[in-house]
């Protein structure tokens, strides 16, 4: 296999520097991944629960902003090892990145399966049945976009261990 770099030469534009400690990264992953369903539920459910106007807008806006900021922080994690091309990574990082895509695919497939399963059961049980309108499909599409883009970064951020400092 041809190495992506040569001896005594660092990969160009090398991806390094773990700016965030692992507990912080895990918290960001949880906020980004669990925050979106909470955001959608708040968007739909709070008006039904009686919260409207400014209070609704502030609550939903804060939730949405939290999800976006957490997702962006993950995306920038190590200038996003998960998004970097081979030339910017060494062999360990390439392995970590490739494994992250595999794990992300598994998680994404599981999420899609659960959504389809729950949606299918709900459409059978609920009366009147769920109709696939723009309002129903839109959050699913945005969710699919969010998770497909950020899951590999989230997996890397979740799994990469902190190393002790230079001795």
């Amino acid at each position, binding site marked *: 296999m041809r190495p992506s770099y040569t001896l005594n030469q660092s990969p160009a534009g090398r991806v390094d520097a773990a700016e965030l400690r692992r507990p912080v990264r895990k918290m960001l992953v949880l906020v980004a991944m669990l925050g979106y369903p909470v955001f959608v539920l708040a968007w739909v459910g709070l008006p039904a629960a009686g919260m409207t106007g400014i209070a609704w807008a502030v609550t939903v806006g804060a939730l949405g902003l939290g999800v976006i900021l957490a997702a962006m922080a993950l995306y920038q994690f190590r200038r996003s090892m998960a998004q970097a091309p081979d030339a910017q990574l060494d062999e*360990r*990082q390439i392995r*970590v990145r490739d494994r992250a895509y595999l794990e992300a695919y598994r998680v994404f497939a599981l999420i899609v399966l659960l959504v389809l399963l729950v949606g299918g059961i709900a459409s059978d049980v609920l009366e009147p049945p769920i109709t696939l309108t723009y309002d129903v499909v839109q959050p699913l599409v945005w969710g699919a976009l969010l998770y497909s883009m950020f899951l590999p970064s989230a997996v890397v951020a979740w799994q990469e261990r902190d190393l002790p400092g230079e001795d």
Partner: protein
Amino acid sequence: MARPVANRVEPVLHNRIGVFRAERGMTRQALADALGVNYQTVGYLERGEYNPSLELAFRIAELFGVPLEACFSRAPFTPMSQQLYHPEQ
């Protein structure tokens, strides 16, 4: 003997990278630059949490000027001080 590494089971490969680096007064960053890898990868290598490719293993041994088997082993290394001063043990 095997241990889980990031959800996988990989054979343990013992190494003396940390010892050789310390002998030469190199920082992890200096070693990483010499090898063309990320400095964190050096940390993973030293702690035995990442097994290098054969190509990288040879480069590490060549950089330190030692045979491959002096740097890597499937069995735990005897401490160098014991090898030097108490070889009979």
